[in-house]
Each structure stands twice: as C-alpha cells, then as structure tokens.
C-alpha cells in the first residue's frame, strides 16, 4: 500500500483538477465575457483586453432585468417556503404513520418527479390559460411547488426517520398536542434537513427556464433566466452576449451566498445527545 500511495495521490489530484477545471472554466469564461466590450465579445483571449462595467450598468439600470430579478427572488422564496412546509408535514406522516395507500402516495410523488417536464408544459399552459394564472406569480409558484414537493418529501422523510420516535412520545406524555410535538420538538431537530431541502427547491426554482419562458409573457412575472432571452443588443443584428453574461453572473451570486451561508447548518448534526450516545 505504502508504495502505491504517492502515485494514487497524484492520480486523484489530477482527476480532481480536471473536474474543477471543467466546472470552473465556463464560469470564468462567462465572467470574462461580462467584462468585455460588445466589440470584443468575439475576441478569443481569455482575459478582456479592455475591462468595462458597461454590461452590468446596462442591465442593472434596466427594468427589463431588475423586475425579473425581483420576480425570481419573490417566486423562488415563496415556492420554497410553501414546498418545505408541505413537504415536511407530508414527510413526517410518511416517516411516522402507517396508513392505507402510503406506498401509493410515495409512488405518485416519485412519478411526478420522474415525468419529463417538457411533456407537461403544453397541458399546464392550457390549464393556466383557462384558470387565468398565465403570466402571474401563482402561475409559476404552483408548478414550482408541485415539482419541488417530491424532492422535498424524499429528503425530509429520510431526516425524520433519523429522529428517535421516543422524543415524540416524550413530547406527547409531556402534554404536547401532535402539532406541538411536531413544531416544538421534531421540526427544530429536522431543521438541517429543512434547510437542505429548502436550498434544493430554491435552486430548482431559481434556475428554471422552461416553465418560466412558457408561462410568462411580460416582465410582470417573467423570472431572470427567462428575461435574459429577451435582452436586445445595440442593434437588431447584435447578439447581446455581454449583457447576458453579466446577468448570468448576477443571478449566480445569490446562489453562492445562499449555499455558503447555510452550509454550516446543513452539516451541523443537531440530533446528537437525543438518545444514549
């Protein structure tokens, strides 16, 4: 073993570097593009010859981007909140209770997650038009919650299963109603799971393009990824590469902050000490 170790280490290091490079180079390229002048967009050099804030200035002063950015944040947060609340209640029931049709329920929720989204766009579009949800916030929130739930239920029921059932019994004996037992004992302990789920659901909403482009028609409800599609260049014949790159960088930043901020909570195991250990 000892003889192989340095070679192995070198092998792993190479593999890691390749993966990191593959992941980061497009991002860096995007950042670089966002700082290039419109004329230099087709310049193949990695670093811009001439740095400019023009692209950022352009999009951050334009309602065409600011309004969709606000939509993205609002729709994302509301969808995440609803999905996590519903998913935690459903997951709790699945983890704790025995009821008829439980496996059918789990199967159905998995089915939703597995269904190709593109196949649902047309029927959903028709439904939203009929219900007057087209081009509104709820028009996006409802499908986001729907598609976020299976993921949430799955992640959270794994977390709930880890929590000793005796804690809940203890809470009941201590005089808690089932709802109090859930909110005061189980939910705080499942908080890391809820944060994890929340991040996953939020990312899915934030990054969604397909539904956003299909169910919106104006900036009243269009989210940032969809809005980028409607950017215009300096002239009809110019591709707005610079502004798109800048917008992409802007919408990536919240995600990075989000993950960095909650990382510690995701890792922290709150359940230690509940039972003998």
């Amino acid at each position, binding site marked *: 073993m000892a003889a192989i170790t340095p070679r192995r280490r070198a092998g792993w290091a190479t593999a890691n570097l390749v993966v990191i490079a593959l992941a980061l180079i497009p991002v860096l390229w995007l950042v670089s593009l966002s700082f290039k002048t419109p004329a230099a967009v087709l310049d193949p050099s990695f670093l811009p010859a001439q740095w400019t804030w023009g692209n950022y200035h352009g999009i951050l002063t334009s309602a065409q981007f600011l309004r969709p950015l606000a939509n993205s944040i609002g729709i994302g947060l509301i969808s995440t909140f609803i999905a996590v609340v519903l998913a935690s209640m459903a997951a709790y029931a699945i983890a704790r209770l*025995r009821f008829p049709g439980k496996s059918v329920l789990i199967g159905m929720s998995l089915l939703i997650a597995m269904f190709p989204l593109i196949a649902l766009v047309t029927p959903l579009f028709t439904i939203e038009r009929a219900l007057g949800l087209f081009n509104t916030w709820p028009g996006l929130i409802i499908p986001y919650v729907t598609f976020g739930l299976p993921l949430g239920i799955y992640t959270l029921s794994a977390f709930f299963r880890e929590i*000793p059932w*005796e*804690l809940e*019994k*203890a*809470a*009941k*004996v*201590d*005089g*808690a*109603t089932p709802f*109090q037992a859930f909110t*005061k*004992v189980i939910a*705080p*302990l499942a908080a890391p799971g809820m944060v994890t789920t929340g991040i996953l659901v939020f990312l899915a909403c934030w990054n969604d393009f397909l539904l956003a482009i299909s169910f919106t028609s104006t900036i009243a409800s269009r989210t940032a990824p969809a809005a980028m599609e409607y950017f215009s260049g300096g002239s009809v014949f110019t591709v707005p590469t610079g502004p798109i790159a800048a917008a992409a960088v802007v919408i990536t930043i919240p995600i990075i902050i989000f993950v960095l901020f909650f990382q510690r909570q995701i890792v922290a195991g*709150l*359940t*230690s*000490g*509940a*039972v*003998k*250990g």
Partner: protein
Amino acid sequence: MAPIVLDHITKRFPDGALAVNDFNLDIADGEFVILVGPSGCGKSTTLNMIAGLEDITSGELLIGGQVVNNKTPKDRDIAMVFQSYALYPHMTVRENMGFALKLAKTPQATIKEKVEEAARILDLTQHLDRKPANLSGGQRQRVAMGRAIVRDPAVFLMDEPLSNLDAKLRVQTRTEVSRLQRRLGTTMVYVTHDQTEALTLGDRVAVMRTGVLQQAASPKELYDRPVNLFVAGFIGSPAMNFMAGTLEEGMLRTSLGEFRLSDRLRREVESSGSGREVIVGLRPENFEDVALVSADNRPHGLTFRTSIDVLESLGSDVFVYFTRELGQGVNSAELEELARDSGRADSGASGETIVARLDAATHVREGQDAELWVDARAMHIFDPASGRNLSLGDDDGGTASVQAAPGQADAGEAQAPDPDARSGGVRAVPGQAGPAGEAT
C-alpha cells in the same frame, strides 16, 4: 396520585399479532408495581397503553377511577421515563425539565421554581444550562427523571429507565428510584426485563410471558410460591434447578433420589391428570453441604453424594455445579423459552446440571465427591404440560409459613425444628404440609 385498574386489557396489532392478552391488574394508589418478563412479552406495550401511546384493542383502563381508554396522554396526568431518556437535544436541561409545564402554560416563575427544586433533589443544579449532549449517561438519566417529577403527576411510568447505565451506576440509581418513589408517594409502574431490579424495587411484581400475565404478587411471594414453571424459572438468580421426576407409589423418583410425597400432595398431583411425569424445581439455596446441616433439619431433606464439576466462591456463598446423569431430562416449552432468554440453552450437558448455593464455611472441593443435602420442604412440583405449580395447594396461609423456610435454609441451622415431620427418611413437604391438622 391515583390508583390504576387494568380490566381485561387486550392489545392486538394491526398485523394480527396479539401483544397483550386479557391483562387484569389493580394497582393501588401509591403502589410501586413492576412489569417484568423476557423481551417481547408485552410489558412495554402494556406500559404504552397506560401512557396512552398505544391504543387499547379491548378492555378498560382506569386511572384515578376514570376510564381513560380514549384520552390522549396529556389528559391522563402521567409522566414517563423512557429507556433512551428521550431528552430533547435542542433544549437545555432547564428547558427539558420545564417543557411540560411550559406547554401547560404554567407561569414562568413557577416553572423556574419547580425545575430548580427538582434539580436540587436530583443533584442537577450546576447542569441546568447545559444541553443533553454534554451530559454523562447518569446525568441524562437524572434529567429524564427530573422531567417526570417536575410535573408532579398522578402516575409515573418507567420503561427500563436503568438499562442504559453501567452496572455500578444502575445499582446506585436503583436505590435512588426507590427512595424517590417512597418520598413522592406517587403510583409507579416500572417495566424491566431484569428480575433482580424487579425484586429489589417493587411492592408488587407482575411477571408476563407472551402477552399473558403469569403472576402478580410481592417479590417474596413470587419467589416462594411461583404459580408456574415460567415464573419459577424467571425469578431468582441463579435460576431454580429443574429436573425430571416420576411418581411411583407415593414416591417421587428424581435424579437426586427418592422423595416421599405427603398424601395431600400426592392427591393433588394425581388429580391434576398430568400423569406420572412431573418436573421438580429446587432453588440453589435449598441445597447445603450436609456437614453444615443441623441434625434436626436433616430428616426434612434428602442427602446424596455427587461429584462437584465446578465451584465458584463468592466470599459470602459458594456456588457448586454438578451433573446428574440419571433422569430423562426435562422438556417443556416454558423452560426452553427461559433458557433462550438467559442464554443458557447451549449447556451441552447430557444430564441435568444443577447449581447449589452452599454456605461459605463448606469444605467441598472442585472435582471431588461431596455429600450434599437438599431441603425437601422447599421443593416445587410442576405439571410438564401446563407448567402449573402443583405443590402450592389452595391453603395460602398455611403454606406461606412453611415456604418462608427456604430463604433461611442456607444459613444451615436457622431452621426451626419440626418434630412431627421426621417420619423416617425423607418427606417432601413444600407447602403440602399446609394445614396444621395434617402435618401433625
């Protein structure tokens, strides 16, 4: 403080498994009752039904004179200590102990006062602001107890509260639990699989097996007058010795020798319809080195020679193990279950291995032959089919006094002489000598 009545309580799980079958028990106000039995006997299920954590399939449960079958745990005025303690990991000790009061909307000042008083009783004052993760096993156990006593409930329920502690701490805490219960005077139902814990703690011990209550009696009564083979084998450590016996013309033939049965016992055994094969039970302390038995006592028992396989000296007592090759062995479902439960199933010996507890003054040596004496008055006779103890008789008062003897038998000469019983050789008189009229 409230009495508890379990009236024909039955629990059947949705998958059809019968966990508790027709359980009847009256628990008096302030009584300390232990539910004991091997794992899977339904004792925890019974406790959970009292707590309201499991539904009762049929039967009635009364706490403080009220039927509580359909009441939620919070309306039953109970407190429970769990095997795993089930402390809330995200709360401090103070919050853990005050949680129930907080839910009951008790004023903040009262909560503080009660929590601090409980902490003082349990020696937890300096740990009040720590989280359970930072406490030792013993401290966590005390927090769990504290959480229960803070509420001053009508009933305490304990589900194996000591089984996660190490042996030394367990004995120490056992005493504390006992003292606490006496001090608070609260009705307590305590579940354990440890018969020593059961005997030392309880006012009354209820022995369960496969969902059925076998016997509920004082520790002494359980020990001296077990109603069946299971209780006899479960209670006592080391366990009661069982050997096959055959009835022949008023004599009971066993691998140790022949015992003469009293007429009453013989009638009892014969009328039971169990045939001539019986199981004989003798506790280890019913044996003694014959040299240490007073001349007055010798006629009450049987003297036999045997070679000693193993000798264990504990200082206060000496345990000797020997094997009798005679006899066809004992077969009984109950004994098999007992053996499984205690891990004794793999003894591998062809004959009957018998444990005897002798006085420390004995000169018996390992590997040598020794002459031992066994007190026939303490003998139990069981029906192999039903496991019923045939030697109890129905005259409780009379037999109890005779039964009290075996506890002292190992002291050698503590036995009060009984001039009427020395009618030649051996008389097996456990309880069957019963009424004074017959013994004379």
